């Protein structure tokens, strides 16, 4: 049994884990119900909403943990005056109790996600160095990969690099190639590879189907912004859209068209959404800040009030 200040810290951490889970479930419900509505939001605010959604469980857990800590440090205000939020035996902590097991599960899962992402990052960096070594200089911060397939992508965190295949260089006209390179440089300018990676860490704390949906929405928003950044007097939106279609056709000629898979179908919508966006066919609306604020506040209140309910519910079955 642990007593004293260390026990307080461990109890607060346990509270944070529970608050995280409650907020996570709440956000998951919001995503499940409103995911299609995101498509009707303007792109930049949509990106902010997506960031807010994936970070809300963390923000809620920190806020709730701080409130409980503050309550304990300021003469247990929360325990005595606001009865619906309190924690039993704040100065005592047992590893072999539901408090301890909850904390261990929370820490283990978080460590698993972070270690998995770090291993992926390490492998990615090594493979990227090898790919850079095997590619040839094409333009400023653009490398050419000798391969017949039509592919272009941007990657790298601090040293961002665009890659374009020789197949794409051969198949596209000068203006089409300019579209692709400008699009990739927009991704580099916006630091999209780094942002996508950080976003995916937060998203991976949700159930996989929701995590994929969140990532797909973020991908679409990033692609739409990169497409938007390409438009100028010379490169019109219909021309950019037709370049996208041409690349899609060329891609399809190298790999069989897939269908009837949830991700693939939704992925297909990404191209459609990009074209509609470029052609101004989408009636995108600003985000309602009031509703967003109220939803976030509700999640925070729910996380705060549910701690006590969960505490009592579990302790009717288990002891401390």
């Amino acid at each position, binding site marked *: 049994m642990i007593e004293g200040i260390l026990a307080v810290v461990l109890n607060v951490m346990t509270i944070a884990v529970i608050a995280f889970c409650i907020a996570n479930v709440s956000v998951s419900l919001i995503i499940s119900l409103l995911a299609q509505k995101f498509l009707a939001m303007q792109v930049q605010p949509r990106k902010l909403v997506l960031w807010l959604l994936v970070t809300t469980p963390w923000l809620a857990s920190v806020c709730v943990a701080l409130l409980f800590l503050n309550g304990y440090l300021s003469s247990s205000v929360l325990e005595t005056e606001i009865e619906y939020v309190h924690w039993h035996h704040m100065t005592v902590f047992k590893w072999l109790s539901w408090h301890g097991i909850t904390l261990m599960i929370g820490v283990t899962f978080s460590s698993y996600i972070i270690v998995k992402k770090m291993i992926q990052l390490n492998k990615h960096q090594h493979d990227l160095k090898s790919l850079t070594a095997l590619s040839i200089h094409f333009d400023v911060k653009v490398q050419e990969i000798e391969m017949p397939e039509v592919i272009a992508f941007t990657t790298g965190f601090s040293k961002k690099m665009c890659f374009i295949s020789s197949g794409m260089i051969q198949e596209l006209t000068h203006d089409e190639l300019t579209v*692709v390179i400008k699009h990739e440089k927009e991704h580099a300018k916006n630091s999209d590879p780094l942002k996508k990676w950080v976003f995916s860490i937060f998203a991976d704390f949700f159930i996989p189907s929701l995590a994929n949906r969140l990532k797909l929405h973020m991908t679409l928003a990033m692609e739409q912004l990169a497409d938007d950044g390409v438009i100028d007097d010379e490169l019109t939106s219909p021309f950019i859209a037709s370049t996208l279609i041409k690349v899609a056709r060329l891609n399809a000629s190298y790999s069989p068209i897939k269908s009837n898979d949830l991700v693939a179908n939704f992925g297909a919508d990404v191209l459609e959404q990009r074209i509609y966006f470029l052609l101004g066919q989408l009636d995108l609306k600003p985000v309602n800040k009031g509703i967003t604020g109220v939803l976030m506040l509700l999640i925070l209140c729910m996380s705060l009030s549910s701690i006590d309910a969960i505490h009592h519910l579990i302790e009717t079955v288990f002891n401390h």
Partner: protein
Amino acid sequence: MQIGELEKLVLQYLWQHKSADVKEVYTHFNKIRGGSLNTYQSTLDRLYKKELLSRHKVINAYQYQAKVEKCDLIGQLIRSVTNDFIADDDSSLVAAFSSMSKDFSEEQLTKLEALIEAQRLKLAQEK
């Protein structure tokens, strides 16, 4: 897997020449960029350990051959680097042009093309 600059050069030499021992590799590169026999021996060893080369003994020296073709290695590296953001084993580190376009039907592409053409005509008329 990380490939250094010298490893890349040696690999490219073996992709061109199919098979060579360390002396042949050393003789070729010594003229271009210098370096000792040991440097090339250790480079070949590293590539062998990375399973990019195979080797067999001929009398007292190893003959090295590229185990993977250049296009296969590049394809493998691209797959690793561009693992899709939405896949289960995503790397999420890449922003790709038209990354999901291959999951599209011909009919849908034609429909979108008609839409683009209509928009183009509309813009032309406005001018």
